[in-house]
């Protein structure tokens, strides 16, 4: 979301509270406030003060802002956003002090996090993995497919509320909770061995989780901030990429030991040499490669895993500000969103070249993407933040690589969910008002919005269960529950309480590559 967050609506409540505050003077040193910021704020606002899930807080962005107004945002939080109230967690002097510190501190140069730092951060919670149970210790289907993982952020983006929560998607019961310290962001499942999942947090720790016993066995800190993570098709490697610092790393998926780091930099589409955030990282079922997006450099790198030294092929000039992507054609093609050009670029991962750039509404954010087969055509769906006039979901014919339709929806969207067995493609409306409570359902056949669900909270990250029978949606921010619907009747069938749920990840994803395709699609690639 970095760079797409706009200047904020001032909280009126905050202003009113401001007027009630008594004045006092903070005398603590700026070192203390640096630590206070890193410990309480950086997981959302960025360790380098450059913004991450939340706006940048530094001397430039906060220039001329009233300290009183800022203090009161910190105290009361900002309604209907992830900004939590720090009233009672930080005292008045601390809040004053941190605001003063922020207004005096420029955006920091990219702080380093080297391969040695990573190695030192490796933690082992279960030394001897042979002591782990050989099958799940809870009730689940034999194929171990009906498992859904939810990234529960926790109100403060850290602390007791931050966990990866796993649910049996046929009974809608929680089957495990793995504390993650800071907000869980991404959950990936190992395609080769069903027992392992990997959870990445906002602060770039990766946890290797044993799903049979529902506990973390190891963790490593791969950077300061950044959500990018992918797992190779053979389940042997993980690649992780950061916003802070600008690097990526390949890990041994078994031990989490870092094998090689990559500095993310290159020539952007305008000819400038830039250092770059990591965007999405994806493993594909068709080859032993990773693809990684360099957000600012506008490049996609393809990394060969079975060649000495993990060599990189660079695909340049893909688009301005790349972010997320999804696979089609047995994993041979990658559809990647470019925020600033409002296009989705189709990339041939075999030939390692751009096939075509397709129109994609306004500020496309395809989430995990979706693709469905309808009447002989394979249709891809792409959501967009749409901070401009156009709020559509783009539908492309993935064989012809052309736009089929731009379906008007009621607001900006972030993530589409689809399943071969479910009639609708679900998209989350994220526009900052009551629409944020809703999810719209696009009929796969008519390509029109058929229904709007009022889910509650900030409704986002829809995901179908592996069998397609149920639609899971996070009622995030203050909604504090995951709501489950019947995919056909759209009746609410269950609610799973948790603190500030966000991303939902079905273990089915390893089976159908891109949500909405049938498992056969993946067979093609083998």
């Amino acid at each position, binding site marked *: 979301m970095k760079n797409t967050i706009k200047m904020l609506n001032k909280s*009126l409540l905050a202003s009113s509270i401001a007027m009630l505050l008594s004045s006092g003077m903070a005398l603590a040193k700026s070192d203390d406030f640096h630590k206070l910021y890193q410990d309480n704020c950086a997981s959302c606002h960025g360790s380098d003060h450059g913004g991450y899930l939340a706006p940048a807080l530094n001397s430039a962005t906060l220039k001329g802002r009233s300290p009183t107004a800022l203090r009161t945002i910190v105290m009361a939080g900002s309604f209907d956003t992830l900004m939590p109230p720090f009233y009672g967690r930080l005292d008045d002097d601390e809040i004053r002090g941190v605001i003063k510190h922020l207004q005096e501190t420029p955006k920091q140069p990219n702080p380093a996090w080297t391969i040695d730092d990573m190695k030192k951060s490796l933690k082992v919670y279960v030394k001897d993995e042979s002591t782990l149970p050989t099958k799940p210790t809870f009730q689940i289907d034999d194929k171990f497919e009906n498992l859904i993982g939810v990234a529960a952020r926790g109100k403060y983006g850290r602390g007791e509320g931050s966990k990866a929560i796993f649910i049996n998607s046929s009974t809608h019961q929680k089957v495990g909770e793995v504390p993650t310290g800071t907000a869980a962001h991404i959950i990936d499942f190992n395609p080769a061995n069903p027992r392992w999942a990997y959870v990445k947090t906002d602060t770039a720790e990766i946890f290797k989780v044993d799903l049979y016993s529902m506990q973390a066995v190891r963790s490593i800190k791969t950077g300061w901030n950044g959500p990018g993570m992918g797992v190779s098709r053979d389940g042997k490697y993980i690649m992780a990429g950061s916003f802070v610092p600008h690097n990526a790393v390949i890990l041994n998926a078994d031990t989490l030991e870092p094998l090689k780091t990559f500095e993310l930099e290159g020539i952007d589409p305008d000819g400038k040499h830039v250092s770059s955030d990591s965007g999405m990282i994806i493993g594909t079922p068709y080859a032993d490669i990773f693809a990684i997006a360099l957000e600012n450099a506008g490049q996609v790198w393809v990394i060969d895993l079975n060649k000495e030294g993990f060599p990189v092929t660079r695909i340049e000039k893909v688009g301005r500000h790349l972010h997320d992507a999804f696979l089609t054609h047995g994993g041979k093609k990658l559809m990647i969103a470019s925020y600033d050009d409002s296009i989705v670029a189709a990339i041939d991962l075999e030939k390692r070249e751009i096939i075509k750039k397709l129109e994609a509404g306004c500020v496309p954010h395809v989430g995990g993407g979706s693709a469905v087969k309808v009447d002989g055509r394979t249709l891809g769906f792409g959501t967009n933040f749409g901070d401009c006039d156009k709020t559509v979901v783009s539908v492309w014919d993935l064989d012809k690589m052309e736009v089929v339709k731009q379906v008007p929806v009621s607001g900006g969207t972030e993530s589409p969910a689809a399943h071969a067995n479910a009639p609708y493609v679900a998209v989350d409306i994220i526009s900052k008002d009551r629409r944020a409570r809703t999810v719209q359902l696009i009929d796969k056949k008519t390509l029109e919005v058929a229904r709007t669900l009022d889910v509650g909270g900030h409704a986002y990250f829809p995901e179908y269960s592996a069998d397609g029978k149920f639609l899971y949606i996070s009622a995030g921010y203050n909604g504090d529950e995951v709501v489950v619907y019947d995919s056909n009747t759209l009746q609410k069938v269950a609610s799973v309480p948790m603190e500030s749920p966000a991303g939902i990840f079905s273990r089915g994803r390893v089976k159908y590559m891109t949500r909405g395709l049938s498992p056969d699609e993946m067979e093609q690639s083998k």
Partner: protein
Amino acid sequence: MKMTHFIVSLLAGLMATGSAQATSLYVGQAKAGAVCAQCHGIRMPSADAPFPPLGGRDPEYLKTAIKQYRDKTRKSDIMNAIAGSLTDAEINDIAAYYGSVKP
């Protein structure tokens, strides 16, 4: 500008969900979700938060407490500001809604 002005606009913005006449759980839910849940959560405040829980509490107790904040017989900078301009109908709706929630 007077404080009441801010709060009135706040409520106008966040709480504009219909004219509460009879007690309405739906209206209460919308208001609680938009404002109060920021600190108190719906079922439960955050595991890490210092705010008292409201979900599942006795509606009569909640009504009394909110009214005390409103008329400042119970002092809390934050709650006095928030309750300051709530109407009786809004207080009834919110208390009824929080009372109906299972924590």
